[in-house]
């Protein structure tokens, strides 16, 4: 008799806790998810850039999703330099061909992969970029060569809409 009663109570307790936990989760998730990017932020997903006036050796910085994107028209010498690097010397080995499909144009996020500062153009020990915050050196392909950054600067999705326009995103 008493044993049967205990079992019924056990069931009620367990069922109550289970429903309570699911209910709490269902209430907490919206509270957490509201902090993720909202619809208006997501809507600003792509940017088109006019590159017709850029000479070799010039870099421009454009804003995409609130972040700077570097577009550099590289000189023949720079392209040769980027391709000549031995992959074994790299912390994050990536071929230059994989980073710049059209070797003349390097399009990458101008965000240091260490803690998110904007590296400076044509500075540092490798003729590429140098991050002033914590001293990361990048080469002319945007690959990390020295300093605390763990990976190469990111290449965003982009395509050439025509010879004069790049669409980022």
């Amino acid at each position, binding site marked *: 008799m008493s044993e049967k009663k205990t079992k019924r109570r056990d069931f009620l307790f367990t069922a109550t806790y289970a429903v309570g936990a699911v209910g709490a989760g269902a209430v907490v998730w919206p509270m957490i998810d509201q*902090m993720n990017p909202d619809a208006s932020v997501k809507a600003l997903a792509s940017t088109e850039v006019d590159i017709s006036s850029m000479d070799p050796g010039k870099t421009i910085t454009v804003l995409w999703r609130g972040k700077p994107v570097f577009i550099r028209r590289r000189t023949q010498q720079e392209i040769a330099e980027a391709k000549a690097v031995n992959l074994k010397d790299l912390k994050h080995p990536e071929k230059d061909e994989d980073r710049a499909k059209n070797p003349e144009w390097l399009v990458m996020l101008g965000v240091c992969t260490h803690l998110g500062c904007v590296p400076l153009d044509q500075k540092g020990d490798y003729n590429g970029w140098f991050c002033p*915050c914590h001293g990361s050196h990048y080469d002319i392909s945007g690959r990390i060569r020295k300093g605390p950054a*763990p990976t190469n600067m990111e290449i965003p999705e982009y395509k050439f809409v025509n010879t004069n326009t790049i669409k980022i995103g």
Partner: protein
Amino acid sequence: MSDHEYTPKSKFGKWFNDRLPLLTLASHLTDYPTPKNLNYWWTFGGILTFCLITQIVTGLVLAMHYIAHADMAFDSVEHIMRNVNYGWLIRYIHANGASMFFLAVYIHIFRSLFYGSYKSPREIIWIIGIIIYLLMMAAAFLGYVLPWGQMSFWGATVITNLFSAIPLVGEGIVTWLWGGYSVDNPTLTRFFTLHYLIPFLILGLVVLHIWALHVPGNNNPVGIDIKKPSKDTVPFHPYIVIKDGFALLMFMIVFAFFVFYTPNILGHADNYIEANPLVTPAHIVPEWYLLPFYAILRSVPDKLLGVVAMLSAILILAALPWLDTSKIRSAVFRPLYRQFYWILVADVLILGYVGAMPAEGLYLLVARVATAYYFLHFLVVLPILGYKEKTLPVPLSITEPVLGGSPNLALAKNKENFKD
């Protein structure tokens, strides 16, 4: 704790106190027996309470004029400085108040380190204190972002990016913190909300901190357990109240000097330039009170390990009551610990200095040595010292070294028993 029965004198007081014993609490606080040898290093608890109230009151009135929007925040701060009546004064008190708060908390923490106040039975007081310190750092960081200057923006970018070091989920967490793909308006509005919330969390923890303190009572410069109340104690009011009050006045002179004579010396000129997501200032440094930890972050060449080292440097303090194996509390009776204590003080100051310098060459080397020593102090020196150190004889009571007369401890103890 003085557990004496308290009965209010008036009839109304008695009626009220029977229903809500606030008067019993007030009586406990005024009569609270305090060691009579507390020196001025013990006045910083009161000073810190003053700092917290100052930040809450000035913050409240600043929030009446500030606008938390990426397009308007910078201008609204200038509006406070130029147009709002006494806005300059209130903002300078709030901004320098943060520095004064940290100055006081560092003295308070190093007081505990010297006199062993974190040891049994005061571990919980200490751990609550460390949580308060962590919340203070969070509040200071969030508040620094609100003016939306260059240092605000890039400080926010660098600090939130620390979370990207977490494997797998790091990037997702950073996007979630930002509410976007970079630090922007959603980041600013949530930072403002949290900056407003945290001081009240701290206030609640301060109540717990003092509650936990009133269970064993104050530690004291001699570091021995004392009987309460006894001839070794004085009531909190008026003895400690007046001493705390005097120290607070001295502290306010320093505070006022910064507010009225050099209100911007502790800040960075770059923060008077509006936030620009395309240009990082050439030299990013955090506020002075975070520099030692910043130096530790930069001294490790690996991103994840750097973040781990920085967090460990703070969290290791919570384990201190168990890392320090010595039974003797006060450094007064620990000749070797006393020397290591001062080396640690110097080590932290050096870390603070190199944290403000560029992370290269000799500075980087010094930062690495100082970081290694910091961990060595807590993980190796303190545990071993408790077993190896030959400590000096500890007096039996606070009164004994002054009035006991006899160098023979057994005799002095007998005398003590006779008097009771």
